[in-house]
């Protein structure tokens, strides 16, 4: 096939790379735009208004009042919600990465039945978060649950995990780590599987330490997939709702009230402050965007550097 021929050919029958890119990306973009444009703009509009879905009156434009209230009013305690969410996100994602990565390292070499074991370890992730919240509430119950019976020598004198202001958040973190470490594990496992053996063999010949091997071979090779895992877990942690609602509902007081729970409380549960909750949602969105942007940038720099 001559060169000229190919060009002419691809013009008619074969798609050019640019076209293919467009055709491949378009369906995704169109669907996402269609599904998101109305909700996004509508709630953006509502965030500048005083509006309640249960009120039979149209939204009243109040410009930035909602945002001012969220960011400045001390008694509204929105900062408390952000702190709780931040703590929750950092600890639960951090622990998930540690546990998930360790599990992946343990599971990278296959042994008899490792496939089944891996599937079994994945089970917590497959459960519905609402049911998980409900059941762990029963499991954490100091008198009806098994958690204290496993952890303490004297279960009746054990902590009331969900009633204690400090422990309640840790209880949620424990459940989240239990549930989502397998997710990190599976992605790490895929990353580990992609590392060619010759890299280790070469390192062994160079008498490189295992720490060196881990830092220079294992970690960089797993990083791309681990990054995606961390990114998505962080986003999910900022949105944490089902689990928190099922386990504590934000209690005791508002000690475990994450932003999402607070949002729910403002937007539903009798209050129905649709305007204010939309504003809060946008503040959350901006924070998530900022955090993930910083994160992606530092990663890109790391990869290039």
């Amino acid at each position, binding site marked *: 096939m001559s060169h000229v021929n190919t060009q002419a050919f691809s013009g008619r029958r074969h798609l050019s790379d640019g076209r293919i890119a467009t055709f491949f990306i378009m369906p995704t973009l169109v669907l996402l735009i269609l599904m998101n*444009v109305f909700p996004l703009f509508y709630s953006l509009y509502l965030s500048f208004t005083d509006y309640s879905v249960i009120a039979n009156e149209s939204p009243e434009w109040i410009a930035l009042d909602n945002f001012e209230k969220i960011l400045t009013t001390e008694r509204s305690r929105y900062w408390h919600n952000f702190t709780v969410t931040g703590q929750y996100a950092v600890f639960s994602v951090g622990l998930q990465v540690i546990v998930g990565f360790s599990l992946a390292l343990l599971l990278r070499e296959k042994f008899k039945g490792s496939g089944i074991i891996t599937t079994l370890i994945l089970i917590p992730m497959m459960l519905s978060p609402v049911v998980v919240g409900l059941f762990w509430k029963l499991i954490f119950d*100091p008198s009806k649950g098994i958690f204290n019976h496993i952890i303490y020598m004297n279960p009746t004198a054990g902590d009331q995990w969900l*009633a204690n202001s400090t422990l309640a958040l840790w209880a949620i973190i424990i459940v989240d780590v239990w549930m989502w470490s397998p997710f990190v594990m599976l992605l790490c496992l895929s990353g580990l599987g992609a590392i060619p053996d010759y890299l280790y063999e070469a390192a062994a010949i160079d008498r490189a330490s295992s720490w060196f091997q881990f830092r220079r071979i294992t970690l960089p090779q797993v990083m791309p997939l681990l990054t995606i895992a961390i990114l998505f877990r962080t986003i999910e942690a900022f949105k944490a709702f089902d689990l928190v609602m099922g386990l504590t509902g934000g*209690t005791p*007081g508002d000690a475990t009230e994450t932003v999402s729970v607070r949002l729910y409380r403002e937007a539903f549960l*009798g209050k129905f402050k649709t305007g204010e909750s939309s504003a809060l949602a946008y503040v959350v969105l901006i924070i998530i965007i900022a955090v993930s942007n910083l994160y992606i940038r530092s990663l890109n720099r790391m990869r290039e550097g």
Partner: protein
Amino acid sequence: MLKKSASLFILIAMALTLVGGVTAAPPVQEVDELVILWAEWDPANYLQEIGNRYEAETGIKVNVIQEPWGSFYDRMAAEWAAQGDSYDMVVGDSQWVGQGATQGHYVDLTDFMLESGIKDSVTPATLQFYGEYPAASGRYYAYPTEGDAVGWAYRKDLFEDPTNMEEFEAQYGYPLAPPDNWMQLRDIAEFFTRPDDNLYGVGVYTQIDYDGLTMGFENVLFSWGAGWQDENNQVLGVVNSDAAIEALEFYKGLYQFAPPGTNNAFYAEMNDVFINGQTAMIMNYFAFFPALANPGINPYADVTGFFPGPAGPNGDRYVALGGQGLSVLSYISDERKQASMDFVEWFASTAVQEQWAEVGGYTCNIEVLESEAFLTNTAYNPAFADSMTFVKDFWNIPEFGELLEPVQRYLHAYVVGGEGTAKEALDNTAIEQYEILVDAGVLTE
């Protein structure tokens, strides 16, 4: 190229979402089905049974849609926001009446209730709390359908055990029996709290979602002679009055005798800690007592007794109201409104109310409530009929949800979290409620 077509698609998408709003109005047709929205629980099954009898009589199908309790209110609110006609009627919470009435979601039933004589067929207290808005205005928006209040269940075997009776009398100086007042209830709770035997005195509501804790605390608050507002709707100095502070301290005192794990507990958890034999007395809505009287569910069913809420230090006696009224939604066609009202009229007749009580519904019909058949039907019906004469409720103005939220938050932090004092909790609650009421125009600064 990509960019251009992307922006084009955005435009099309926006246009679509805007234009999509044009939908055809439903054609006028004969009503052959009535759809009623209610929460997912047994009484809704009973209503479906009654509805089936209506279909047999008139040929109009009655469909009771059951939505889980957790999302019942959200679903109704979404439907209101859309001004949708998916449901003809709703058996809505007593506190929704204000929203339904002022925002025009509910049909004004005043004339209908007066003309058909329904108004006088139910007890005045239930009509006032389930149907009337604003208070004492004589405007009605709902037919009291499922009466409910907070009552008490107790373990007769523990109360009637000779050793317990002897020890109790020696310790407190009066005989052990279902309490007449809150101080006795506290003594009994203290007496039965024996962590070494895994036995606890009392189960009380503490849940933070929606209204759980408030519905429990209210019983004490009202019985202490305090309330959520005075006659001028003032909250400052009312919510945080000395009596209210004392009541809150008392409620926290009761929580000390509650089984561990009931730190975020409502009706389901109350029944759980009773069924597993951990608790001597529990508070709960009457609607959840059938399970306790059922030996297949509750191993202690044979030795379970019931009593109505006790009196306060000055003899005031009130219990928190639960329950729902049947309202007609205003976004349906006139034909369907008429058909719905026909159903309400049929349902409200004494004959049908008798059936309603018989299948398990908590009727509000005066005649049925007083009838011998009702009082002897179950072990808890006498306590129920008694309670319905001294019920009291939280705010039912459209802002009730906002008013509820600070109560729930501060009280939970104090009662369960042990933060601060009762005075601080109620002071903060009063200030926040005051601000909400000023914003709403109920109070002037």
